[in-house]
């Protein structure tokens, strides 16, 4: 994914974000491809990106934020954010709105 103006929105009807004891979790709640006894655990970067996905912020801005927050190589950051977004889409945690 290299379109930096793309915008994503969370699928609140499908997945719930929870933080319990420093564990950042995405809990699937809707019947779909997920197995109900599983959830997703986000690391610090994942949780940071998740919180930036709000249906308004473009991907380019999210990548910029990750670079400055975690002081990572821009190319690496772009790849990591793209992979993560792809994964979130595949589990229906987010959907593209622009």
């Amino acid at each position, binding site marked *: 994914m290299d379109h930096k103006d793309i915008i994503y929105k969370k699928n609140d009807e499908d997945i*719930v*974000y*929870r933080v*319990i*004891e*420093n*564990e950042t*979790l*995405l*809990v699937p*709640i*809707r*019947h779909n491809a997920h197995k*109900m*006894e*599983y*959830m*997703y*655990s*986000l*690391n610090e*970067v*994942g949780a940071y*990106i998740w919180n930036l996905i709000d249906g308004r912020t473009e991907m380019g801005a999210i990548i910029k934020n990750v670079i400055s927050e975690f002081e990572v190589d821009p190319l690496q950051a772009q790849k*990591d954010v793209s*992979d*993560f977004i792809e*994964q*979130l889409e595949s589990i229906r945690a987010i959907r593209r709105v622009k």
Partner: protein
Amino acid sequence: MRECSLISFNEIINRIYLRTKDRGLPLQGSIELTFRCNLNCQHCYVGSLRRVPSHDELSTTEIYRIIDEIVEAGCLYLLITGGECLVREDFLDIYSYIKKKGIFPIVFTNGTLLNKDIVDYFVDYPPFVIEITLYGIREETYESVTQVKGSFKRCMEGIKLLKGRGIYFDLKTVLCKLNYYEFLEIKEFANKMGITNFRFDPILNGAIDGDNSLIFQLRLFPEEAIRIERLDSKKWEIIEEEYKKYGRVSLDFDFLYNCGAGKNTFHIDPYGRISMCMLSREPSFSLRENSFKEVFYESFPQLRNIKSKVRKEKCSGCELSLLCLLCPGWAYLENGNPDSVAEYLCRLTKIRKEIINREVESEKRLS
């Protein structure tokens, strides 16, 4: 870098338990939405409370507020039960609220009130576990327990409805003098239905209304309960393993509570009274007057510090103490006193041990 990893429910629970083992966290809870029930089971632990009118039960809004509090405190899975939880007209609203907060809901039901609307919703937003209690495999047996004509047919329809819509459910049975003889057939039925987690309980605990007269009449003798346990090789193997492993370990019983009650668990009754677990109901605190966190982190630790007198005197040094099913909750329901012993469980544990000892001796002789 892997920002998002798939993780099983058990893995995350174990991880959090380990991290919070010293101070506790209310990861697991149960809520009785009502004591009312459309059945009238003779052995039911709710007893006469199932006939108490609904006016003092928590309202939908009160339940929402409590759910918000337990989510904030870290609850990850919640048993929704009763009475019969589907008796409440707002069941789906409450279930939906719990589900959409990211709690894994477990629903215990008799299955007789399942309808298309509820099952459609379960298809869309499945429970983590839904468990139906089956009291018999024949109408006359089932209804001798439930005392409601037509209940067997309705239960079977409920099971069919879930099965037809592809919702995974579990079956369980509670065995007493009215239905124990159908155990193998109930188990076989569960097997045919593709149930992999079938469970049964041949040991009735006391009632929460303090009247155990009927329960003591209907409860199987320890010998009979064990005979049934041995009919299920999987269950008996687990019991045997535990006895071989822990058969010579005794607890000191300095403290009354040696389990996770009030440390990892909590229980809320239909009137908003919260206690440390579903069996250990007193002392309890009103969530209409106290916040969940106040009770869990201020009141429960004080209860967990209560010292044991009777159990310390009678159970300390008993090499079967780690295997005995007795806990303060069981004792409270049995005798009205959490710090007491239950002769029934004492006998049951000793008989189990004798049988297992004989089996071990017999195996030794054969080899």
